[in-house]
Each structure stands twice: as C-alpha cells, then as structure tokens.
C-alpha cells in the first residue's frame, strides 16, 4: 500500500515536471511580448524598456528563466503578475472562489441529472426512454457549450428578460443571495449540460455491465426483491467506474468553465487564464497551469483512495 502510494507520488512529480517544462516553453516561445503593452505608452524609451525587461528577468536565457521560476515556486513564491505586480497566488485565490461556485454547482447538477437518467436507462434497457436518453446525450455532447450559452442568453435574457446575461452580481447593487443565484442559474446550467450527458452515458454503461453479471442472476434466483438487488448489488458495484469518472471529470470542469466564463463574463479562473494568455502574463498563466495540473493529478490519487473505500477487495494489502 505505502509502496504503491510512493510510486504514485513519484509519477505525479514526473508528470508535473513535464507539464511545467512544456508549459513554460510553449508560453515563452509563442510569439508576442509581455512588454508590448508598456511599449505603447507615450514617452517610453528603449532604455526604460530594457530596464523593465531586465527587472522582469526576461532577458536571461530561457533555461535560466525556467530554473529561477522553478526555484522560487519550490520555496512557495509563485511570482508576481507582469500586469499589476500583484502576487500570483493572491490573484489566483481571488478568482478561485467564483470558479468553484460555478463549477461546483454545475457538477452537482450534472451528476444528479446525469446519473438519474443513466440509471433509468440501464434499468429499462431497450425501452423507448432508454433510446431517447442515449440519443439526447449524444446530441448534448455534439454541440459546443458556448452555443448553448448564446442561445440561452438570447432566449432568457434578451427575449424574456428573466435572467441576467452575465457577471456574478448586479453591478453597483449590494450583495444579496437572490441576486447571486439569479446570476448563477444560466452559466451553471450551460456548464452542466455536456457533463450531464457524459454522466448519463457512463452510468448507463456501468450499471448495464453489472446487470449482465452472474451474481445478479444468482441474487435474482435466490429470490431477492428487485429493489434490494438494485440498491445492494447493482449500485455498489457500479460505483467503481463512476468514481473513476468523477476523477476524470475534475480537470475538465475547470477547462469547461473557461469557455462558459467567457460567454457569461464570470470573474473566475478561466477568464483570468484567457486574459493572462492574451497579455502574455507568464507568471499568472504558469501559476494557473500548475494549479490545474496539481488538481488533475491529485484528483487521480484521491480517486484511487476512494476506490479502496468503495471496494473491499482492494482493502487487503496488494501482492
């Protein structure tokens, strides 16, 4: 058990190292200059620009820049934004709440509706409802998220005027929970749509797989009620693949939020990331990249831990 854990941690470290090197190279080698915004301001001389470049450490060789960045990161210093000189960690944490609220709400919506639809389909395989759910899931997965965003805005905000089309609360108004909820409904629904479809497909297949196994037939043969078979035997065994999906979906919620946040001008990590890419704000972009990579890898470790909770067979020491 501990051996497995240590080797997992080692693999996580390797993955993170590759992510940091690739991300760093991609960002720095891509055309564009973080100083371009300053070069436009009147009275800026080439000497001043050179001094700024030196101060930001951008005149050093790329490997050296990487090592400096990595060294600072390992001592807990995430660097400062090129744009407003705020510490990167402060900026990220400042935007994290909004994204977690949006992505968390969306995940809850998606898991409940998706899993319910999948279970329904699996227990009534081949029925009209089952086909309908399968087809609807594929359709939901085939349409880009931002299109739903645009159509929902055009319908519920522009046409009907029921819900606001963007932002996290009404500008200038004092904070109120009702106002906040109103702003949350559209983006959370849009973000939930595609992942609800994934959940429904996945749940259906997982449950259908379990239903086809011998021990279910045995349970039925010894006269257990269908209700008991479902809750005790089927659900418990279908839980494993669903835990895997939860781990896999974790990082995609963040990148899905990226587009949704853009459409609904939601002040979260996703928009911060797109802005930092546009302004070549390397420290912030790298910070978010590492942050999401750590979440993704940690997600898979947590998944493994949950596995042992859900599956008693894995609780004994592995050979």
């Amino acid at each position, binding site marked *: 058990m501990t051996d497995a854990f240590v080797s997992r941690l080692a693999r996580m470290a390797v993955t993170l190292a590759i992510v940091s090197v690739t991300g760093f190279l991609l960002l720095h080698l891509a055309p564009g200059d973080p100083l371009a915004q300053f070069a436009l301001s009147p009275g800026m001389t080439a000497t001043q620009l050179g001094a700024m470049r030196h101060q930001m450490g951008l005149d050093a060789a790329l490997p050296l820049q990487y090592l400096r960045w990595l060294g600072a990161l390992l001592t807990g210093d995430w660097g400062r934004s090129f744009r407003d000189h705020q510490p990167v960690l402060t900026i990220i944490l400042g935007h994290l709440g909004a994204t977690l609220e949006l992505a968390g709400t969306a995940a809850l919506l998606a898991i409940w509706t998706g899993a319910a639809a999948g279970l329904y389909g699996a227990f009534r395989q081949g029925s009209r409802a089952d086909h309908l759910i*399968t087809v609807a899931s594929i359709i939901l997965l085939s349409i880009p998220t931002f299109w739903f965003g645009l*159509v929902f805005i055009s319908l519920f905000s522009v046409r009907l005027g029921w819900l606001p089309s963007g932002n996290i609360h009404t500008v200038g108004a004092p904070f109120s929970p009702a106002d906040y909820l109103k702003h949350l409904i559209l983006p959370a629904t849009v973000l939930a749509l595609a992942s609800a479809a994934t959940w429904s497909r996945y749940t259906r297949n997982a449950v259908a797989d379990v239903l086809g196994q011998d021990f279910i037939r045995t349970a039925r043969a010894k006269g257990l009620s269908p209700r008991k078979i479902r809750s005790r035997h089927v659900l418990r065994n279908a839980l494993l693949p669903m835990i895997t999906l939860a781990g896999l979906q974790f990082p995609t919620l963040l990148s899905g939020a990226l587009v949704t946040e853009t459409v609904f001008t939601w002040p979260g990590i996703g928009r911060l990331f797109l802005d930092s890419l546009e302004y070549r704000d390397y420290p912030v972009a790298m910070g978010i990249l590492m942050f999401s990579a750590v979440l993704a890898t940690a997600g898979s470790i947590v998944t493994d831990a949950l596995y042992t909770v859900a599956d008693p067979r894995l609780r004994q020491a592995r050979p």
Partner: protein
Amino acid sequence: MNTVRRLLKIRTASAGLVLVALLALACVLVPPLLPRGPLQIDLHHRFLPPLSGIHPLGTDEIGRDILARLLAGARTSLLIGLSAMALSTVTGCITGGLTGFYGGWTRIILMRLVDAVLCFPTIFLLLTLASFGQPGAATIIGIVSLVAWMEVSRVVDGQIRALRDREFIVAVEAMGASATHMLLREFLPNIAGAIVVVSTLNVARAILMEAYVSYLGNGIQPPQPSLGNMLNDAQEYLRPDPWLAILPGIVIAIAVIGLNFIGDGLRTALDPRQSNASGSRR
C-alpha cells in the same frame, strides 16, 4: 460487408450517415446555385430574417448571405475535420504501433508524455499552439492533430498489448515472421475496427475544436467565414438578430451529431460480442 450491413441496421448510425452525406452534398452542390457569394456585402439589406427574397436564410450585419456563409464554413469545418483525422490517425498508429509492439523505454516515455499533455486544459493547448502559426485552416489542422494523435496512439498501443499474448500471434512469431509482417498483416486487421471508431469520433472532435478556437478569435479569420467565427460575430447582435447565433450552431450540431452517431454505431457494429445473441463472450 457484414459490418456495413450491421451498421445500417442501427437506426441512429444510418441517420448519422444521412446527416453527414446531406451536409457534404449541400456544401458541394448548393453554393453555385446561390445568387450571392459568402463574402458579398450588401449594406441595403442587413439583418434580413430567414426566407426573405433571394436570401433563403437571411443576411448578417453587413448584408452577406447567411446560407452561403454557412455552407462555406461547413466545408472548411469538414475539410479541417477530415485532414486532422488523417494526420492524427497516421501519427497515432505509427507511435502506438511501435510502443505497443516494442514496449520498453520508448513506451514509458511516450505514455508519460501523453499523461502530462492530458493534464493541460485542451483550450490552453489550442490557443497557445495557434499563436505560433498564421491563423488559418492549415494551422488549425496542425494543432488539432497535435492534440488528437495521442488518443489514437493510446488505443493502438493498448490493443496491441492486449493481443500480444494471444495464441495466433505467438504462433506467427514462432514461425519467424518479421516485425513488419506482424504489425501490418496480423495486428492491423485485428485492431482496424478500433482505429476506425476513434478516427470517426476524432473528425467530430476536430470540428468542435475548430469552432472553439475560431470562436475565441484565434482560428479562421474574418472575412473568411467559419462556423466558429460566425458565432463570435453573432454574440454582438443577439438582440436584433438571434438567428445569426442559432443557425451556425445548428450546422455544427448536424455535422458533429452525424459523425458521433456513425462512430457510436461503428463501435457497436464492429464489436464481435454484439454480432450474435449473447453467450459468445469472447
């Protein structure tokens, strides 16, 4: 032949084939019949609703014919999807074939790399890679294939490793078959089905990726129409004209739903477990 018949029996799959075929045909046959080209501006007839005069689907903010633009965009999307699929399938088959067959260090390195790349948000990869080249169809094909080949590679690698210990492979190897013979004559026919499925789904994914990149402004550049950048333009005109946003989405949906249906149907049709009644589990 058997597979085709099984595929056509699946209702959603044949519906998918019809959708994609109709869309492809429309992209080729309809544009020459339209009175206006996709780039022709007509400031006297802006924001016309669908079904108005010579514009079957209306006009956009500077009076360009929407149907002409949609079809031009769809053609670009299909071309990008097919080319990116071809590129990523070839790359994925070669890398996955080599790592699955030879294993060893190359495999460990490649799989670590794939793991790491899967850690990146796809949009980040698409946007940063897009900034390296001139924005346009060729660049999008390049970056989409760069992102998509890994999945093919994983599938091929996994399938080959699953087949390695089967009796017929061991037998062929014992008879002294060369690596080329084994890969092309023994493995390839056995995993072709899996490759076809991933590749079909990859065409759909490439079309979606184009839409995302162009929507965020780094893809096909105006005035050249693409389904993604039409949606970006439409965002400003949701109030006067929601059609501008609805129509490109429907075309994307037709293409991607069609391809996903086909891919899904292929998976079922090619699965030997599904071919006859239950019982023959292997």
